[in-house]
């Protein structure tokens, strides 16, 4: 059965590109365009991995992390922070929530992100 990946990202064109790549790699892709919907979808669909942007409408990525880590069953799901914020405070805050990797969107190609997803799912 295809592994489910939830991508929480408000930029539609990034969603589109990532979904196309992940589907061609054989994953099932779920898309959420804001933090609140992201949390609901994570609870409802129980994805195998979450890709999370940090600057999001309604609830930002940090709030999403805080809530996901408190939900039963979800703390074990690997989360990859996929953001263009690269300052020390954001990185340290994310790592304190136990994210698997912290990736700057602009610095990674789709192939490289796909490789990171593969590693996180192993």
């Amino acid at each position, binding site marked *: 059965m295809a592994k489910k990946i939830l991508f929480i990202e408000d930029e539609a064109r990034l969603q589109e*590109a990532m979904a*196309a790549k992940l589907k061609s790699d054989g994953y099932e892709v779920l898309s959420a365009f804001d933090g609140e919907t992201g949390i609901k979808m994570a609870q409802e669909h129980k994805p195998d991995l979450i890709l999370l942007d940090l600057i999001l409408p309604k609830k930002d990525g940090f709030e999403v992390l805080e809530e996901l880590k408190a939900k039963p069953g979800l703390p074990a799901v690997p989360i990859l922070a996929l953001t263009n914020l690269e300052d020390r405070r954001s990185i340290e805050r994310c790592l304190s929530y136990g994210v698997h990797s912290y990736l700057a969107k602009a610095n990674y190609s789709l192939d490289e992100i796909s490789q990171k997803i593969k590693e996180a799912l192993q």
Partner: protein
Amino acid sequence: MSNLIRRPFLSDELSCAEISRCGKLFSGVAPFSARNVIIIIMKFHLDRVDSIKQCRSYGLSLWQCPQFLFLIMGAITIISIIATYFASRYYIQEPEVVALIVLAVAAIIFIIGHIIVSSFDMIASASRAKSEFVSIMSHQLRTPLSIIKWQLNLIYEKHIGTENSEIKKFLDHLGEENQRMLHIINDLLELNRIEDRNLYLNPSNFSLGEVVGDLIDRRNKSLLEAESNVFIETKIPENLPDVFADKIKAESVASHIVDNAIRYSANGGKIEATLVSSGKYIKCSVTDQGIGISKKDQKMIFSKFFRAGNVFRYQTQGLGIRLYLAKAIVEAMGGKIGFRSEEGKGSVFWFTLPAAKV
């Protein structure tokens, strides 16, 4: 008198009652009673606590921060006034006159100090606003550039593959230019992080020899493809101890230095990258036979936005911050960076990183 002493001693945050009490302090029966002096000093210190927080927000140590130095200056001046008054009581018939003169001079010093501190505050606020602007703009620009990058990835994967068409050539150019913009923005963001003391380092033990070796293999491949007459040789000893540093940042420093050597060897020549261990540190040196740096420009080489005169004549691209970034990053990782150069003959740039503890 109260007007003179009010501004320097007590900032605007003080209430009118407190100000008038200070006025009385110097016109009353016991102008320098120990109790009143202690009250003034305490008030002064309490009012400046916020300023100390402000110093931290500037990212300065207390001894570099005008607000804190102003506080110290205030305390020293108050002590000096009191000491002058008591000393003059023993040696001069009218000690109050001496004390008033000292007080007037102190007030002028305080006013000037206050103006300096306020001006610094304004400059710091303007600088912070500029830095925030750069940060916001850079983040805003990174999103569309990420979209271009990812969409190009998809076009290559789904429609271009390995074919060697004219379209592929144009797409290659788009990808390269997009990457160039990302490099510029990344450099500006890194500069901002360094200046805001917000640089993230993730140190680990790794082989600098492998990092530099791989980097040079990639550069030699590109030089060969571009039919360049530059070639990079490496001297990396076997069994070179690991370093303890941030691997990605160390690679970026090595690539700044190697890329500079290539860029400034436009007329060809040999480039040599050497790694040696000196016990506590591993040293990486890159020697080129390029255009070198004039004596005048050598002092400025690690400055921000500096481009050497002989370089700028034919190489107009670049922000001139890479060596500044390299220096800041190497020093943040506990290493050192330096160079020697002779105009027309070439340069040697080197950096060290701490060896990993066994």
